[in-house]
């Protein structure tokens, strides 16, 4: 019952190994078993909204179908993977022409039409484990720490497809912060974009965006900022010019659960 198909995605295998390792260790400690599907492919990083794009959506459908065949819900951690997979699942459930074209190509034993339930790891904590239960398992609470949750764009929007939380006034990460004993900091830029992939060709724009986010959190007295996204972490750390510490939420989770040293070799 508490076994899930787990999709790490390309970056969690390379530049964001911490995000992955702490997620796995914490899940185990919380009684959740994560099983990675064989031969998964990169999600593509960004969902292509165009209706005449099919090939770019196939890898996400393969992941969704792997979970369906395993008979389990799918768990993601990276915000980008989550966004691509959720938008793909929404469109294949609601756009018959897209579903027909995808299935015509994939020739699966049974057509995939959006059957898989997808949880972001934070939703798993909220809806499967429960923040009250998580609180009981915390051994190193972040007492007195003012923690700013950074949602960015990918976890929440488009709200009708992502359906995680109120896209304009979310609370899931703040509730997570409370569960691990910290004090959440609310700030204006928490659900605005960090600049994302524009860092590849326009560092100035990425710097401007990420500095706005960091300054907004700092003005509200944050001691640190947490994110689920490797690209947000990169922009906030490397492009913002701010020295406010930035962590993956899974790192704080593992620390709160007393697991950090064991996995922080």
């Amino acid at each position, binding site marked *: 019952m508490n076994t899930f198909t787990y999709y790490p*995605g*390309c*970056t969690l295998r*390379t*530049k*964001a190994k911490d995000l992955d390792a702490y997620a796995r260790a914490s899940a185990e400690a919380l009684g959740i078993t994560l099983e990675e599907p064989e031969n998964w492919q*990169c999600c*593509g*990083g*960004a969902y*292509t*909204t*165009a*209706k*005449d*794009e099919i090939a*770019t959506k196939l890898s996400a459908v393969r992941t969704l179908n792997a979970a369906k065949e395993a008979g389990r819900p799918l768990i993601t951690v*990276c915000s*980008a993977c989550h966004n691509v997979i959720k938008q793909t699942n929404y469109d294949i459930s609601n756009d018959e022409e897209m579903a027909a074209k995808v299935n015509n190509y994939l020739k699966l034993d049974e057509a995939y039409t959006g059957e898989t339930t997808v949880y972001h790891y934070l939703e798993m904590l909220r809806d499967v484990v429960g923040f009250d239960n998580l609180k009981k398992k915390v051994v190193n609470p972040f007492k007195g720490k003012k923690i700013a949750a950074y949602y*960015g*764009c990918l976890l*929440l*929007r*488009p*709200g009708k497809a992502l359906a995680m939380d109120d*896209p*304009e006034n979310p609370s899931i990460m703040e509730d997570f912060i409370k569960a691990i004993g910290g004090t959440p900091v609310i700030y204006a830029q928490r659900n*605005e*974009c960090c*600049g*994302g*992939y*524009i*860092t*590849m*060709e*326009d560092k100035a*724009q990425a710097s*401007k*965006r990420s500095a706005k986010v960091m300054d907004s959190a700092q003005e509200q007295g944050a001691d640190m900022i947490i994110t689920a*996204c*490797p*690209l947000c*972490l*990169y922009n906030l*750390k*490397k492009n913002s010019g701010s020295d406010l510490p930035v962590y993956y939420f899974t790192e704080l989770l593992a620390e709160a659960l007393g697991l950090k040293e064991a996995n922080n070799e």
Partner: protein
Amino acid sequence: MNNNLKEQVLRSSGVNVLKCMRCGKCSGTCPSYDEMEYHPHQFVYMVEKGDIETLMNSKSIYKCLTCFACVERCPRNVEPAKVVEAVRLAAIRKQGNNHLIADNIPEMLDEDLPQQAIVTAFRKYTK
């Protein structure tokens, strides 16, 4: 006016540009506003007018961060980001018109840049 190009963008985006009431909320909330020559609400009405090539030739199509702020906050559910995407695709699908070339990637890298940035940029800028 290029009707064929207009039809292609309308079909590809799936957007009904006639729903727009020109309130400008999409552009007001756009994190790339200062970097854009044409702003999200202008994309919507220029596509309505059929003025697609002007947009295709503007650097604005590479400034959209796909953050979906305009999609979420549009009071008429017009979804301007989908129009920007359809115009950008019309541009990069032209032979020899890729905006990001694989050979140029190595000089953009640093030791911390996540793979996610590279694959996303490829998906956005290159066919």
